[in-house]
């Protein structure tokens, strides 16, 4: 059980506090309800580029990192399709430094032209390093537009193309800040060696004076239901042929989410997962094979990917994957196997909650989803899934017409 308290400031900032006296540290997490789904189609990657700019100086503080390091702290941030999330840890005595820093950049940035120029270059190098200069690095750039035709999930967080990052100007950056960065569009969570009372006093002091802002209303086009199987084959100079398959699923809060999570655990949870046991270990078709679901707020995907062993025909490998998926639809899952993935899930939650930082991120995320209490009842939801639900859900989602497949063929092997 993770105990927490919650309050909302007059400006709309929601604050969650979890006290854990066993640590000398405090984790502070600020989640902004803006992600790459809020990018415009002509300027994708802006939400992520913006995350970089948040470290380049705010209204009263020229540099975010140095004062934090001076107080013994450490920080980082991430952007995904749905949120932009900033986190730091500090020795408990110095937590006010965190309040001072985070509140000032919520108040406003200094929008320096020079910082924008440098960070554009840094993000372009990030694009190169992670997506273009790695074998298979561009697979996600190919898969997203195959699966999504309309919804902004069709582009990756880093953006569709380097040219989008290059053309960003300071006016777009300013507009972006004032339409998305606001106390009423953010959630603050604090975990570790801090009382609810101290958290309240400090939140009022530092975040209280920041005015409410008019946040841009989110109007995203819904992805139409896919009606036929989609396939894409590309050839590249990679060492091994790879197979990617994705299926559309419902939104994060749909009732099937946990069942699908359990199904991906049956398929690929640990070394004893079905895909690994059958297709890697026994049939020796793949050198590696994995499956998981995106935890996107809007309708997401189940993603499966694997690399083939030498000389294996990709159509055969694909057929064998389908057999494993069909098995889920037809055969009742053994009760022991159900028990196994449930135990493993429960234990993964226990281990994850040993970190104050994980608890801070999760509390904020569940608050965004509508109920922080979800941090305490996800295990129960998982435990309630039965064998019929696995069959029914598999039938509903793992149809060919709901699937997009990418054959990422190796030219080296076909020579």
């Amino acid at each position, binding site marked *: 059980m993770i105990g927490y308290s919650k309050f909302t400031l007059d400006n709309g900032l929601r604050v969650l506090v979890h006290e854990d006296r066993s640590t000398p540290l405090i984790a502070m997490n600020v989640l902004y309800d803006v992600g790459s789904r809020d990018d415009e189609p002509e300027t994708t990657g802006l939400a992520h580029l913006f995350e970089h700019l948040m470290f380049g100086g705010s209204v009263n503080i020229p540099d975010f990192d140095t004062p934090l390091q001076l107080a013994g702290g450490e920080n980082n941030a991430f952007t995904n399709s749905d949120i932009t999330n900033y986190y730091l840890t500090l020795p408990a005595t110095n937590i*006010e430094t965190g309040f001072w820093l985070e509140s000032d950049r919520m108040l406003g940035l200094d929008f320096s032209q020079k910082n924008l120029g440098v960070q554009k270059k840094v993000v372009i190098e990030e694009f190169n390093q992670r997506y273009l200069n790695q074998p298979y690095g561009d697979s996600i750039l190919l898969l997203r537009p195959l699966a999504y035709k309309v919804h902004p999930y069709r582009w990756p967080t880093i953006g569709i193309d380097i040219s989008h990052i290059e053309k960003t100007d300071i006016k777009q950056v300013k507009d972006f800040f004032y339409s998305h960065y606001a106390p009423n569009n953010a959630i603050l969570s604090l975990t570790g060696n801090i009382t609810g009372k101290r958290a309240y006093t400090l939140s009022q002091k530092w975040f209280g004076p920041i005015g409410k802002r008019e946040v841009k209303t989110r109007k995203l086009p819904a992805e139409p239901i896919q009606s036929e199987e989609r396939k894409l084959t590309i050839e590249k100079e990679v060492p091994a042929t790879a197979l990617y398959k994705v299926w559309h699923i419902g939104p994060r809060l749909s009732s099937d989410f946990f069942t699908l999570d359990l199904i991906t655990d049956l398929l690929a949870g640990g070394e004893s997962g079905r895909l690994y046991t059958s297709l890697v270990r026994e049939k020796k078709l793949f050198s590696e094979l994995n499956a998981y679901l995106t935890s996107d707020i809007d309708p997401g995907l189940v993603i499966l990917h694997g690399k083939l062993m030498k000389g294996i025909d990709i159509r055969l490998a694909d057929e064998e994957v389908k057999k494993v998926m069909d098995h889920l639809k037809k055969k009742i899952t053994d009760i022991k196997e159900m028990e196994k993935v449930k135990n493993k899930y429960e234990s993964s939650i226990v281990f994850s909650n040993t970190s104050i930082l994980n608890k801070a991120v999760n509390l904020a995320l569940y608050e965004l989803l509508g109920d922080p209490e979800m941090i305490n009842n996800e295990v129960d939801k998982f435990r309630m899934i039965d064998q019929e639900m696995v069959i029914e859900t598999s039938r509903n989602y793992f149809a060919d017409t709901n699937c997009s497949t990418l054959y990422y063929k190796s030219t080296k092997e076909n020579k």
Partner: protein
Amino acid sequence: MNTLQRIQPPVFHIDTPTVPEVLSIKLDNNIPVYLIESGTEDIMRIEFTFKAGHVNEYLPLLASTTNIMLTEGSQNYSSVELNRQLDYYGSFINLSTEKDRAGLVVFLLNKHIEKILELSMEILFRPAFPEDELQALMKKRHRWFLVNREKVQNIAMDQFFESLFGKTHPYGRKVVESDFEGMTSALLKDFHEKYYTPENMAIIVSGKIHEKTTILLNLFFGKISSQKIYIEDARNRLKSFNKKRVHVPLPGALQSAIRIGSQTINKREPDYTGLKVLDSLLGGYFGSRLMKNIREEKGYTYGISSYVASFDLSGYKVISAEVSINNTQKAIDEIYKEIELLQNVPVEKEELTVVKNFMLGEIIRMFDGPFAIAESFKSVWEFGLDNNYYHRLTEKIKTIDSDEIITLAHTYYNVEDLYEITAGSK
């Protein structure tokens, strides 16, 4: 009206980090056990560590293959059954092989400790090394290898180790395609018999420790004995390249990977703590000089960093970055410029205070929670040290001054001694 003063930072205070005690006991057969009581959940991390690293192998890949094959079947369990049981009881395991050591880390729920210890015993002391599984693994590893050598960062790092430690020493030897052929179950059994022995082993336990924890450890691990004593081969010698600059081509790469560094002192040497401070200033944290100059000022890279690492027989320091092809030489020039600045210009008090406070905060984080404490302890214990090292480090961080930084920079960052490795297209 808001009168809050936002310009000046709030008052802060840097505490001396508390370094926890580690309790040391021995099992009946003298296997040392280190107990670290910490945390609020009823869980544990148990590390079984052996002197069975790359340095002990007499064939490339032998140490790591033996280690990975530990969970591929045992006397009483098939590979499928072993993995299924580990998952069923909600445990997470990590097998790993490093330069000097190899072993198994298990994360477990205390309610299942008996079962997990029984399985761990099977994994570590009764492996079957089935030939079929072994041949399948070697084929898979070969595939992973082909993918990994397409990445500039791996190519550069492999070359870096080879240049520093030599083509024949296990610290430096590069893996090549033919290494994946000829591995046999008999070779693994021999290596296992020699190195996975009680004399070669230690157990580090952290988390919520119960009275029965040590009783159970004794029950499962306190009776085993070695079948033979193995005397290590001391012929392996470290031999650095004379050639300091090596470029490894990877046609078509958009970025080059840069690795600059050399062999250096390890944790056992008195200067090591000071070198840690110097390294942090140069590239050891987000506010370091390399990061500020090469990323935050010039935008040449997504990230540049440096670190110092210890091996049993040596140690090394390295600066690493991935940089676009056009900026590679410029980035290298800036790296040398930063090193020379550290040698010639006294570091300002403000900058030194930032790095000192950051490092003291880092030590607090290194001891936050049972898993972190165990890792921090192991990283000094394996060099024959104890947590007293962290007291010395704390003391050095507090007392080091700009003169000492200059002396250390001259002693340990002599530019002539540095190797410069690049991988990518030219």
